[in-house]
């Protein structure tokens, strides 16, 4: 390949026609093909999202008729309808519910996971090896094996139809992925940094709060974004625990649209689905480099 190019390029600027402007090299042509192929692929991959966005502007009568991207008669009626809410609950309420759960869960995850990670990465105490192995084991455990006993437990504690079953586990570092991510990050930080602090007389608590936490900021940001998005999207836990519509987070509220109005009010269903995605898409646009880097280095799943 390279030899071919070397032979051809000096031949290219033949005097006569366009001597000043050489024709495309083999490499440029390859790059152009590469670019076109990937653009086509991007269009296919992102089409469902674009279709969703454009469909929110379609009138109800267009569904089943006009499956293209462009609405025949663009309208904001769907948004007006969705903001009025469903089952007597306004949309902003579902949105707020989701935000409360996601923010509390993210805070709990960051706090408990960073503490556990510090213990695993930096403190040599009896039993650290066994517990670390147990933590790795829970990474691979199908969590469906614990949902029934957990449901029974939260039921006995009288916590059904409250946010406790959704938030409390996050304060107990049950998502091993984040513990693992932070342990890996802390192991990459030179020990001298925190040992210096310890020599100066700082205890573990001081070392953790004033040395370690600032140093693992990138891991904290990545964890925060993923934790927020996963909680925001979570469907199973609220499906099990939340029973009154005014407490529904968005995914369960969407089900309300999907079940009750899918035949009659397609526009509202699609629009509510899009609104539920907006915070995630915004997060993605702002933090995409963080997210992709997080996946690349830690193998986090989306």
């Amino acid at each position, binding site marked *: 390949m390279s030899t071919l190019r070397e032979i051809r390029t000096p031949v290219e600027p033949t005097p006569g026609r366009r001597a000043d402007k050489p024709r495309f090299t083999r490499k440029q042509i390859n790059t152009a093909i590469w670019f076109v192929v990937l653009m086509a692929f991007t269009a296919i991959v992102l089409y469902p999202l674009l279709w969703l966005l454009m469909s929110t502007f379609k009138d109800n009568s267009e569904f089943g008729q006009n499956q293209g991207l462009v609405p025949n008669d663009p309208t904001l009626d769907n948004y007006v309808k969705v903001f009025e809410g469903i089952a007597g609950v306004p949309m902003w309420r579902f949105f707020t519910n989701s935000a409360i759960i996601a923010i509390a869960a993210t805070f709990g995850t960051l706090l408990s996971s960073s503490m556990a990670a510090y213990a695993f990465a930096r403190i040599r105490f009896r039993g650290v090896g066994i517990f670390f192995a147990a933590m790795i084991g829970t990474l691979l455990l199908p969590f469906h094996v614990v949902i029934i*006993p957990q449901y029974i437990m939260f039921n006995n504690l009288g916590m059904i139809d409250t946010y406790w079953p959704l938030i409390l586990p996050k304060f107990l570092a049950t998502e091993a992925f984040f513990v693992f991510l932070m342990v890996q990050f802390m192991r990459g930080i030179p020990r001298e940094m925190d040992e210096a602090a310890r020599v100066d007389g700082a205890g573990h608590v001081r070392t953790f709060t004033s040395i370690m936490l600032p140093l693992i900021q990138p891991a904290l940001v990545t964890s925060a974004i993923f934790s927020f998005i996963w909680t925001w999207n979570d469907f199973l836990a609220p499906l099990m625990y939340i029973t009154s519509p005014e407490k529904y987070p968005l995914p369960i509220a969407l089900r309300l649209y999907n079940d009750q109005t899918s035949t009659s009010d397609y526009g509202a269903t699609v629009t509510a689905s899009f609104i539920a995605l907006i915070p995630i898409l915004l997060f993605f646009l702002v933090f995409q480099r963080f997210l992709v880097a997080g996946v690349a280095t830690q193998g986090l799943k989306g």
Partner: protein
Amino acid sequence: MTSTVPRAAEATESRGGDNAPATRSPRHETQRSRHWRENLAGYGFLTPWLVGFFGLTLIPMVYSLYLSFTSYNIFSPPEWIGFDNYIRMFEDPVYLNSVKITAIYVLVGVPIKLAAALGVAMLLNYRDRGAGFFRSSFYAPSLIGASVSVAIVWRAMFSTDGPVDDTLSFFGLEIGGWVGNVALVLPMMILLAVWQFGAPMVIFLAGLKQVPRELYEAADMDGAGPIRKFKSITLPMLSAVVFFNLLLEIIGAFQVFSSAYIISNGSGGPAGMTNFYTVYLYKRAFTDGQMGYASAMAWALVIVVAILAFVLFRTSKMWVHYQGDSK
């Protein structure tokens, strides 16, 4: 030796060391108090995780194992029935069907998804310009793929007269909607999984960046073609990443729930073709109140996943090459 070293250790590692009585061995004292302090700090920092691990994982797992040998509906106390739940699974056609479609979903979906991820990663690795944009675009579906919104979109796109049906009809393929079609609904679910190839792709891409360019240059000199280079350089160099992706994707695929639940409105239909393992488990536990039977199903899943992970780890020695031990 006993006089100088302990003094240093005492001064640096124990704040109370200066007042330690000189009559007892100071080294022993500080060592012990240091160990004690480390243990205290360790368990202190680990307390939230420990409470979660025991209270929300280990004890529930043991309890679930106990429940799997009982008949239990949450209202009356569990009644011991031995292995009946496990025997019942093998006689329950709905269960066996859910095992079958979940197995097809995993066996067909995971390889296609990983092949797409590797293919696109190699394509992205070919040139640098604009690769960041493509990488982010392809990753986006992984982030939202499990959401209810996407399940609703997917159902709309593959329904009768939806965009997919319209497009295929345009090319003369009049197959109608995929959602209600017994033969097409599982392929549709697999497509939804494959659409989320971005997460493994990003991991493959990170792996591809680690492959030394000299290997390909040397292969070029030897006149190796692209297929030979892929088989002899790319795949072996990526084998650790392939293993990692394979393990995570298989475990993830076994647990597919919300998209199937939403697309079938919780029914697992048509004809049980979206009645994936966890969907059926959920229905048995929370719709029918058969917590004992559902616990047995959950434990069967844990055992299958554990066996698969074990087999993967064991066989990985034959095909996974870690950098450094290849020579």
